[in-house]
């Protein structure tokens, strides 16, 4: 008993320094660090939008519509990225557009990550029939063209933030499950797991205490890279009119609006797209760096 009380703080200290080492190694990769900075800035923009944004993102000003970037309004304040077809400030909308993108990204990844982790743990640890059934379910999930299935379901349920998050979250678990399952298959044969089994630990305890912490790093890499994919999907849904509904500014929705004015107002479609590109690029760079640091053999 005393051994465990001493062991726990020691373990925690070790874990902390492990994360610190990881961060140092990650920071040495310049591209990964750059990605991290970009992602941090986008998160800061999303959280601080009301204070950072120079204008109200949904306030219309019809007399000032379709003004090119850099145009001042009558009072002399400048629309840095111009205005849209309803005279709304484009920069403000781009900043506020980070909110639905990141919210859907984080929430959907959390849902699919948890489902995938559970499926992967169970599938890899118990094997046999359970594994067969779960992996066939994964095959079925993968057979669908993702966007098509998502818009069909959202079409039936109606587009709202919770529906979008749940639909993306519930249908994206397969990558996580496969990666975690792969990790569990090899962990299952390791001595520390067999020792725990020999000592009579229950399966649930072995999975949570011994296997999960070791299967966590590949999961984290998948989660990071998957967030980039989810953000693109969220904007694709908004682009098709099946995402978060107006007047909430979304990058995809702004692109769809801008597409109509493509021959007269190039900035409308250009800047929201750049916002998506930069965010996704940042996440991908960070994710690639994380993979190369943690688990270079991982193929995701």
């Amino acid at each position, binding site marked *: 008993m005393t051994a465990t009380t001493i062991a726990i703080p020691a373990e925690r200290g070790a874990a902390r320094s492990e994360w610190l080492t990881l961060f140092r190694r990650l920071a040495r990769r310049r591209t990964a660090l750059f990605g991290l900075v970009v992602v941090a800035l986008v998160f800061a923009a999303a959280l601080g939008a009301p204070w950072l944004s120079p204008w109200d993102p949904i306030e219309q000003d019809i007399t000032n519509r379709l003004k090119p970037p850099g145009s001042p309004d009558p009072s002399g304040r400048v629309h840095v990225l111009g205005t849209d077809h309803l005279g709304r400030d484009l920069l403000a909308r781009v900043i506020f557009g980070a909110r639905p993108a990141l919210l859907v990204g984080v929430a959907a990844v959390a849902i699919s990550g948890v489902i995938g982790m559970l499926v992967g743990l169970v599938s890899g640890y118990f094997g046999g029939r359970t594994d067969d059934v779960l992996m066939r379910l994964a095959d079925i999930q993968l*057979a*669908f063209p993702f966007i098509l*299935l998502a818009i069909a379901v959202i*079409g*039936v349920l109606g587009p709202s933030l919770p529906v979008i998050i749940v639909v993306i979250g519930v249908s994206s678990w397969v990558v996580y499950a496969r990666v975690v399952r792969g990790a569990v298959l090899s962990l299952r044969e390791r001595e520390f797991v067999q020792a725990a089994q020999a000592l009579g630990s229950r399966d649930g305890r072995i999975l949570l205490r011994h296997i999960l912490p070791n299967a966590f790093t590949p999961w984290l890499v998948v989660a990071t890279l998957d967030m980039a994919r989810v953000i693109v999907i969220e904007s694709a849904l908004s*682009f098709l009119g099946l995402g978060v509904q107006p007047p909430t500014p979304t990058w995809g929705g702004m*692109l769809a609006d*801008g*597409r109509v004015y493509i021959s007269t107002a190039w900035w409308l479609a250009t800047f929201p797209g750049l916002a998506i*590109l930069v965010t996704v690029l940042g996440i991908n760079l960070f994710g690639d760096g994380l993979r190369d640091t943690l688990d270079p053999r991982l193929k995701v």
Partner: protein
Amino acid sequence: MKTYVTRRLLQSLLVLFGVSFVVFFILHLTGDPALVLLPPDASAEDVQRFRQVMGFNDPFVVQYGRFLSGALRGDFGQSVRHGESAFTLVVERMPATFELAGAALVVALVLAIPAGIVSAVRRNTMLDYISTVVALLGQSMPTFWLGIMLILVFSVQFNLLPSSGRGGLGHLILPAITLGLFTTARITRLTRSGMLEVLSQDYIRTARAKGVGDPPVVWKHALKNAAIPIVTIVGIELGTLLGGSVITETIFAWPGVGRLSVQAIYNRDYPVVQAAVFLLSSTFVLVNLAVDVLYTYLDPRIRLR
């Protein structure tokens, strides 16, 4: 060999069975398919009568059985909007989608494999950096934005290529690049890492030691072995391409299954949506089955598993 193919065949049938259930279930997501299909202003009596006619009052299993037997005969019901068979509507649009997906795949392979090889062989040179950065950008760029930007430059500014519709080769170029870019990026990165791995193997060093020149080492010895993961991903990427066609077809007004499905969803024309989801998913399953069977020839070790 035979048992492997039989097993894969049975697995695919099982997957198609699961797909059919999900497609059936789309209509039942809210619990009341009648309300999904009917316009919101339908009267209570109309809803009742519609339920009776469509058999929505029958037990769930009976309804699914009916759907499945219909699906097997290519009967997904009538399109609410067009009054035609939903199956026929979708099948008529399939060639356009296959044409676009095929062209996108050609674009991807033609660009990605040489780029990946050059990147690996001339590692850490300017060429490698350029190809890596382009691949990274390609993987991070949303399809719909790329499509709009291509239209802005090539159709609006320079008036070089048509921005919408299906016709000659000119109509195909912009949509194929748009749809193919993500796949190009994926295959470039995969080819590069695959080639790097193979080039460091002993048998390559042996070949070089024997005095085999650079081109045959790269093209004969290395590429053959690096090709295996590329073949697998082509099968998987087909799913990305078929799914991506939804967006690309919408942007370029390409008359394929993707555009048809998006319009069908706007019109609440669910028989068409169901037929489209089912047929595209089945295509994906069948192509991957074909890829796996083909694979046993490329990599005989698989037959033993």
